[in-house]
């Protein structure tokens, strides 16, 4: 897909491209907002998590840990480990973003979520459009914060929103993104290894379960690709 060169058009294209994922994140955002209220955070603190941290999984885990009485240091350390997949995203986007001016690097860096990465990572240096990426990232940021706000409001009125299975929305989204990518043996191996080890490591309560499982799956896929003759 080629992108128009006009900044405004590219921005709008990005915003439209992320719209389905922004809507699909609604239940997950509701969960983040309502769980903050249930853990006795003030509405401002609940919103602050989404506005400043902007990482759904880390927010939900932090709230869970707060409820369990964990201290500040252990929550921040867990956040560091739990969001370490973003290091990989940064590494992967390095060729297209690291040459941009500082304000673009910092801005796009702040907006670099799983969903942002899923949508913008396939472009090379010629195809990558910073305005398109900004449209993707900012739209998702606004949506995430609006749904968090909705969750805060609902959480104050409806109890036990966390028992509704709202976290399935993130599974539905990611599965719909991954399945079409699984077209060759290396990717099948990657997904299978990643799936198995993520469940196993979580079962063992490893805090680094997700990133380790992801790395293992990626390595398995990479090795498989090398063995099958380096076909891309």
């Amino acid at each position, binding site marked *: 897909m080629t992108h128009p060169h006009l900044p405004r058009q590219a921005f709008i294209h990005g915003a439209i491209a992320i719209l*389905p994922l922004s809507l699909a994140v609604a239940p997950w955002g509701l969960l983040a907002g309502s769980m903050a209220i249930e853990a006795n955070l003030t509405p401002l603190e609940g919103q602050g998590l989404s506005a400043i941290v902007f990482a759904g999984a880390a927010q939900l885990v932090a709230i869970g840990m707060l409820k369990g009485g964990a201290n500040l240091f252990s929550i921040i350390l867990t956040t560091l480990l739990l969001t370490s997949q973003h290091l990989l995203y940064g590494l992967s986007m390095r060729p297209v973003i690291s040459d941009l001016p500082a304000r673009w690097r910092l801005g796009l860096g702040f907006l670099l979520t799983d969903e942002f990465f899923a949508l913008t990572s396939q472009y090379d240096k010629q195809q990558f459009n910073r305005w398109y990426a900004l449209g993707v990232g900012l739209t998702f940021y606004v949506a995430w914060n609006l749904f968090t706000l909705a969750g805060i409001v609902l959480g104050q009125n409806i109890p036990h929103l966390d028992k509704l299975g709202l976290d399935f*929305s993130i599974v539905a989204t990611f599965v719909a993104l991954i399945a079409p990518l699984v077209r060759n043996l290396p990717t099948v191996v990657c997904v299978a290894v990643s799936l198995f080890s993520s469940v196993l490591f979580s079962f063992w309560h490893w805090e680094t379960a997700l990133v380790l499982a992801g790395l293992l799956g990626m390595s398995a896929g990479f090795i498989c690709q090398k063995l099958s003759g380096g076909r891309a």
Partner: protein
Amino acid sequence: MMFLLIVGMGLVVFLNRYAFLEPRLPLRLSSNARQFLGFAVPGMLTAICGPIIFMPEHQLDLNPANPYLLGSLVAVVLVLLTRNTLISMLLSMVFFFVFRWWLNGAA
């Protein structure tokens, strides 16, 4: 305390996101590294889904009637048939919530 926690978490997440975007970090990606990173989307997104699907409420659930598992399978089939991400997400969510509601009603 809460404010400090939110800012601290924000900094840590931003650090993870920004670290490798910094051009002063001396690093060049080899072709092997690029191929490896090509597996980042399927590898990482799958790892995020795994525990949610198979360990709802932090308990291992390998029962085929696990709504998360069935819902995911429905999403896979739908997206392969329709090639439409949005429709597949929405319909599999509808399936998930209806199935859960039916399970809870039957219990």
